[in-house]
């Protein structure tokens, strides 16, 4: 299962694994909307992602904007793997659409 959602009382954690591309885009959107609807603080874990494509980047970008509008926190749960950082550069993104969890 490359896309999973774990919830506890305060937090929604979206965990991604393997190749996150157009094949998983519909599922990822569903989970993001579910997490946004919960109104809880959101975290996304990318550490085990091998490849991330543009469909995922634009979903994160839209979800982050939505979360910010609602005042919900949406942050990265860990570091961004090297391959994603390279892909971000190639795609002309200055930084990952979701800020790092600095706490």
């Amino acid at each position: 299962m490359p896309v999973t959602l774990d919830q506890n009382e305060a937090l929604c954690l979206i965990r991604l694994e393997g190749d996150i591309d157009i094949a998983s885009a519909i599922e990822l959107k569903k989970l993001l909307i579910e997490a946004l609807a919960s109104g809880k603080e959101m975290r996304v874990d990318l550490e085990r992602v091998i490849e991330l494509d543009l469909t995922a980047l634009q979903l994160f970008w839209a979800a982050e904007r939505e979360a910010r509008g609602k005042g919900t926190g949406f942050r990265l749960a860990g570091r961004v793997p090297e391959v994603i950082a390279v892909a971000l550069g190639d795609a002309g993104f200055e930084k990952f659409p979701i800020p790092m969890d600095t706490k």
Partner: protein
Amino acid sequence: MSVPSKGNAIDKFKQAFQEEAREILVDLESALLELNENRGDKELVGRAFRALHTIKGSGAMFGFDELAAFTHNLESAFDEVRSGRLTVTSELVDLSLAALDQIKAMLEEDAGRAVANSNASNEILVKLRHFTGKPEAHPTEAPPSPALAPSPASTGVARGWKIHFGPGPDLMRNGTNPLLLLRELKQMGSLRITASMAAVPPIGELDPERCYLGWDMVLTTSAPCEAIRDVFIFVEDCCELAIEPDSLQVSAPVTEAPKVPEEKRTTYGRRAYDNPDNVSSIRVPAAKLDQFVNLVGELVTVQARLGEIATRREDPDVVAVSEEIERLTSALRENSMSIRMLPIRATFERFRRLIHDLARDLHKVVELTIEGADTELDKTVIDQLNDPLMHLIRNSMDHGIESPEGRLAAGKPPTATIHLSARHSGASVLIGVTDDGSGIDAEAVRARAMEKGLVAGDAQLTEAEIFSFILAPGFSTARQVTDVSGRGVGMDVVRRSVEALRGTIDIASKPGTGTSVNLRLPLTMAIIDGLLVRIGHAYFVLPLATSLGCIELTRQDVEKANGKHVAEVQGEIIPYIRLRDYFNIHTERPEREQIMVAETEEGRFGFVVDQVLGDHQTVIKNLGRFYQHIQVISGATILGNGSVALILDPHRLVQDAIRTMSLGPHVDLRASGLRPHGLAA
């Protein structure tokens, strides 16, 4: 929570690529063949180059690395042709055609259908290098992906290009990853890139499979504008693309500048998702279509049952609904049949290559002319037409058409012609293969038929009858068996295929002027409009398309004709076949019978039945192998009350009757074991 398996998605894209590539290869083939005729045509060279580039690019994207590498070499050769460094010769065309076959084999290899021969690819590559004069140490180690391909025709001076790239809505859904294109650009030089997120909608409205991003880039490279454009060549139709020189970054005098604004306009104009063509057709697997038509067939049968019940119940409400459903099924049926209709063009065009290759092997000069390529036929008919046409063309090429010297000696132009034609005629379609070769020697055929014991020495035969021997299995007058034909197998294949399609073959030939073979095939194999008739307790269906009308035949009319089977219909005397006698149905003959008048190849004929019941949407069911030899019956259909009616073939009925020169009893349905519902035992 899981997502659909990724492997499936990739297989689907691979399949889509294979399908697309097959289509591109067909286009490439016709471009190459046309190029052989007009060697200076730049447009054709460009068409071939683009086809190759697309196959290479998409191939590499979907993991057909070997295919991409191989195609790359051919593409390079065409790049040389495009830039005028290499001229088109017939050797180059032949080599390209061989390479094309190799690409085809590689394409199918992945689908597990054929095995591409790597020796053959190497051989082609060696020859190609001989043409381009580019020694390459390892022919198969050519760049596996377009990203690594050397940019064609580098100008040597680095300059800046402003590129705007906006993927169309379906770009990613079609299996293209824009990121790969951006990476390919990055390989060409130094790239500054900014993504624009302005078009990304709120997440609730976001279509996750669509790309909303756009990019503005500045690329500094020594490659020319065309090379940049070539990166986008296979997504060009579904994206927004503008390339212009960057005024801030020009590091060399701009010599091409005046040309560029025009370039920009045309690319903006080419946003194919604004173009209705893009959405006006979709690709559907043939199996789904067959299933659809089968379901419509079942629906038609059920509707007939409903109609029957409604009539019996005499309930006006039920009758009204039943009639409405009948109208809808009828429209649905026509619609579903029209979906299956395809123009015969692709089938005809395919033979251009066969004729080109055979003409080369046989040292003949042959031109193909095509007429009525837009004639539409049912897909199942088209699928089965390929083999018989191929054999007919091979026969013409080998036996019919003379060598250029022979033609000149006979006072004909050295270039021979093979003419393929198609046209509609009632419920049939006529396919013709005509050549202007030496024709068939009727006497030789007759002599050979006697030799084989097919005919008695003193038999009086018409020319058409003599020519029909050609269709017999193992019949050949060829003195020599060649690679192309002469074994007497081909025409037998033609006969079998055409019979399987319930068609007929007509051969005409004049010694010295040529041969013409005409195939008459039914338009469709699934559902037809029929006229339901009754004889005794048996039901039959006559195809409506051939029916002209029906009149009454009274005892007095019969007596007036003095025992001859003729009747006067609208001032015209027409012969008739009494189906009751023909099928040996021994029930009491009614006082008034009815004559169905039908148009056949032999002229107008009447078929006498007890009663004409009315229109019937007829779903054709095959009778199966056991009854295949009964040619006057083209199938069966299930009636509303669940009983079976046999579908008659008027052409065959008349031909059969003429052949025996008696319009009396002929086929004994009981003897053949075939018994329509209610047929008296």
